């Protein structure tokens, strides 16, 4: 039996994909910005269940101009890693606006609570491995890469 990925079935959302040492995160959305938002949720899900993170605080995240959409996506995930690490926060909702390879985003979340969130790992960084941002034949955008944990 062939297992179809969510990207192939044409459903917006997020999923993880295989990497033996780490884990791949993939966002699927109707727009590139939606795909970026969903991939950020996929990254949160590497750490904990996004459903257990309350949206108590908002953090603005900006990424200056990148050489292309793929580097911009990599910058976006790494900016979230930075905010999680320096603020000791987890995020469960994201909003992205993209214009000319620059990004303005928001992330909603709360302080890490070891008891409540029991984070499995910390994400060290988003890598350039399996990095892809593209619109598929079904019209949906995907944004993906492997994150180092």
């Amino acid at each position: 039996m062939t297992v179809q990925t969510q990207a192939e079935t044409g459903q917006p959302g997020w999923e993880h994909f295989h990497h033996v040492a780490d884990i791949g995160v993939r966002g699927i959305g109707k727009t590139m910005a939606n795909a970026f938002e969903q991939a950020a949720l996929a990254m949160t899900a590497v750490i904990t269940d996004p459903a257990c993170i309350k949206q108590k605080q908002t953090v603005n995240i900006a990424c200056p101009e990148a050489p292309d959409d793929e580097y911009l996506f990599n910058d976006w995930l790494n900016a979230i890693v930075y905010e999680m690490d320096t603020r000791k926060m987890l995020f469960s909702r994201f909003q992205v606006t993209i214009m000319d390879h620059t990004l303005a985003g928001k992330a909603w979340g709360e302080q890490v609570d070891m008891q409540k969130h029991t984070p499995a790992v910390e994400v060290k960084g988003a890598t350039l491995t399996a990095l892809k941002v593209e619109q598929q034949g079904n019209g949906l955008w995907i944004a993906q890469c492997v994150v180092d944990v």
Partner: protein
Amino acid sequence: MELNLFTRHSEYEWEIGPRGNMSVPARIYASEQLIRDMDHKVYEQVTNVATLPGIVKASFAMPDAHWGYGFPIGGVAAFDPDKGGVISAGGVGFDISCGVRTLLTGLTLDDILPVQKDLAEILYHVIPAGMGSTGKLRLNKKELDDMLAGGAKWAVSRGYGSNKDLIRTEEQGQMKGAKPEEVSDRAKKRQRDEMGTLGSGNHYLEIQHVIDIYDRDTADAFGLYQGDIVISIHCGSRGLGHQIGTEFLKSMAIAAGKYGIVLPDRELACSPINSPHGQSYIGAMRAAINCALANRQILTHLTRQAFEHILPKAGLDLLYDVSHNTCKVEEHKVNGKKKHLYIHRKGATRAFGPGHHDIPFELRDVGQPVLIGGTMGTESYILVGTKESETKAFSSACHGAGRSMSRRAALKRHKGRQIVDMLANRGILIRSPSSRGVAEEAPDAYKDVSAVVEAADAAGLTRKVARVEPLVCIKG
């Protein structure tokens, strides 16, 4: 991988001759079974590394090699600055200077068993572990720069340990040539409250029991005896190293074209050693090495404090501290001539043989301790560097077991609680803030570390000295 991809030079040496843009061969040290079980990505990555400018002799992979970023994990490559050689952020990895240190305790199993649970609890209490954990130390800008320049030596000057520790640490506890000014403000900000923290994933602090001694004389020199208790700490340069890796990976990948470097994979991100970009990374990476050395030194101090409460007679002398994600300048013979080469080891351990001047004086006659982390349910090894390894892979050996199962697959198969209970039944106490993290680190998610070590020993990369099994494991 298919065996017919290789020319087999000996039972444990597999070569891929230069083809396409490869300027040197690729060579993997492993048993036939390990080669068969290896991900095909290792083939792709080890041959890609062989295309980089200025590479010397060969692109190597250790017996625990697996799919990494650009370089395979378990990859070793040397570059000659006089021949356009490069320095690669992808060849070092995100967790710069991640490594292992092992402490001798002078205790035996009989000392530990009555207080095993107490030790597990107190260590879990004093060692900050897991995502979001912070250390007690807060460094201002000047203190942070001093730490980045001083490494473990700085930590000792702040009261965390003694000069005796520095003698038993690579680089005598201080990586020279670090440039804190090349470390971004963002990287420094990530580290301001993370000194003395373990991290997460495969990082751990373990109380271990010496089960087997394979080389009596070397074990004597190392101070290891059957039945002894040792402590091992596995962690790296925390948020600061991760941020430096992130920033240079991107900037080196983008700048490669400017230097005329064609990257078969963006993750091979590199710059010429003799370029402003290359020099900037070298300065920042060395600062991250110091961060890792200082971090492990502080964790050692916290461990000693914990033992002081429960078993004050324990000595906790450092056996050795060795990193396995680095690039270091070393002197090696190439075609009979001594050369200073930039040796990248990504998930590979330096393994100098007897007589090398960088080995602490009292261990110089036997060789450098090589510390190999296993999994929380199996075993770890203490090995020694060999003379033979110099000609094999620039004095390098494996670093651990290497994953064989993805985190997702491990999580599908296991529940953290079951793993903790199963190991407790075998006398191994696990303490971790995350049940899911324990499931993802289940022992069977890793290759058989014994098979990896046997291959490294048989290939002549290193030699077995002792095998240890965990009694307590603090997991991030």
